């Protein structure tokens, strides 16, 4: 394996693709490489080429979750999502760009089973262990997207600037299909550079977890109010972060036998989040 330390975004993207991977904090990528779930000939360290820090409504993709949880200027939903994610050790290394691109925590996937998302035929969670799994968009892969931060950015209507384009956070994600099992639309040689925030009148992030600290979301609910309009997005309920066009959509959930409880939790948290803002 080779490690490159480019000094400009252009140099970095030139080195990406063809079996090389961008390395930010490494909290996700390092164990995936060690466990053989990601194969990379080359790692491209992007710390020096991706912006870091908050300037007005722009957040550098290299900003750590620990920096964001302490930032009084960013919307509350994002600050709370960062503060409630992972552990202090992970937040001090993990960046917001890497967080948006984290892979599923589905144990079948993490243990290297040849499941549908890995390119196989079957979703093992469907007839197996499924307590943490999805209640929406789950007919092919029933994994639950683990990012608290992505749900917050989705509710906030944030946009991303990459080395190629600018687009809404919602467009970063796609449900995987038989032909293309990726859950993001980012090209292998594209880097997220910045996140542009909107300024809501009020926002919040509520998270149900197995214990009060340091847990992935069972259900996370981000809500942001812009004048008379409220946007709600959920973490932990679908293979990708899930925008809830209306509260009534919760009635259309398609839970697995073991995940019906998530719909009830989502209902309660959505009600509380709306009340809170």
């Amino acid at each position, binding site marked *: 394996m080779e490690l490159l330390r480019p000094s400009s975004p252009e140099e970095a993207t030139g080195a990406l693709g063809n079996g090389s991977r961008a390395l930010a904090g*490494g*909290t996700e990528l*390092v*164990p995936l*490489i*060690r466990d053989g779930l990601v194969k990379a000939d080359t790692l491209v360290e992007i710390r020096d080429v991706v912006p870091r820090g908050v300037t007005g409504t722009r957040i550098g993709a290299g900003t750590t979750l620990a920096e964001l949880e302490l930032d009084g200027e960013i919307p509350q939903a994002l600050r709370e999502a960062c503060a409630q994610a992972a552990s*202090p050790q992970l937040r*001090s*290394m993990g960046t917001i760009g890497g967080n948006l691109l984290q892979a599923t925590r589905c144990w079948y996937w993490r243990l290297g089973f040849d499941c549908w998302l890995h390119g196989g035929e079957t979703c093992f969670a469907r007839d197996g262990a499924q307590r943490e799994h999805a209640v929406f968009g789950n007919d092919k892969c029933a994994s639950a997207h683990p990012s608290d931060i992505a749900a917050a950015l989705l509710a906030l209507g944030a946009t991303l600037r990459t080395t190629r384009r600018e687009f809404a956070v919602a467009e970063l994600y796609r449900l995987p299909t038989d032909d293309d099992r990726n859950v993001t639309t980012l090209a292998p040689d594209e880097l997220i550079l910045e996140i542009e925030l909107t300024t809501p009148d009020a926002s919040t992030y509520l998270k149900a977890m197995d214990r009060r600290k*340091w847990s992935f979301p069972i259900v996370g609910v981000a809500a942001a109010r812009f004048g008379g309009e409220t946007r709600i997005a959920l973490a932990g309920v679908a293979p990708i972060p899930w925008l809830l066009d209306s509260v009534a959509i919760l009635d259309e959930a398609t839970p697995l036998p073991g995940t019906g409880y998530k719909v009830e939790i989502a209902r309660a948290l959505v009600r509380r989040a709306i009340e809170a803002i």
Partner: protein
Amino acid sequence: MRIELSVNGEPCEADVWEGESLLYALRERLGLPGSKNACEQGECGSCSVLLDGKLVCACLVLAAQAEGHEIVTVEGLAEDGRLHKVQEAFVAAGAVQCGFCTPGLVVATADLLARNVYPSDDDIREALSGNLCRCTGYAKIFDAVRMAAASL
């Protein structure tokens, strides 16, 4: 590749593989087995070290990422042959059973107390939330943290 870094105040060099973790380099190449390897997934905190003063899981950081940076491990907390107050408190409170989690908890506690001399129980819970202990049930660990805070 060869990397240069500072470990516990001393400049060091090590020959490492590009994909190897800082934890591996500390334990196997630099002779510092204090930081423990339990889960290698960022879940247990037994490998906690300070990187430029920030608490991190050494199992999730590549050795190469630490190039040019300052690392403090549990071995670096004692000064002039005298244990750090946090280490003394863990011994005095009986907060150690198998001891596997102890180095990580000691480093995380030292980090908390360096920032906050009067931590509330909630501050302690938050600061140690990334460190799991399978033996003690945490009550004695809390005693040790309170004791260390009082002695500072």
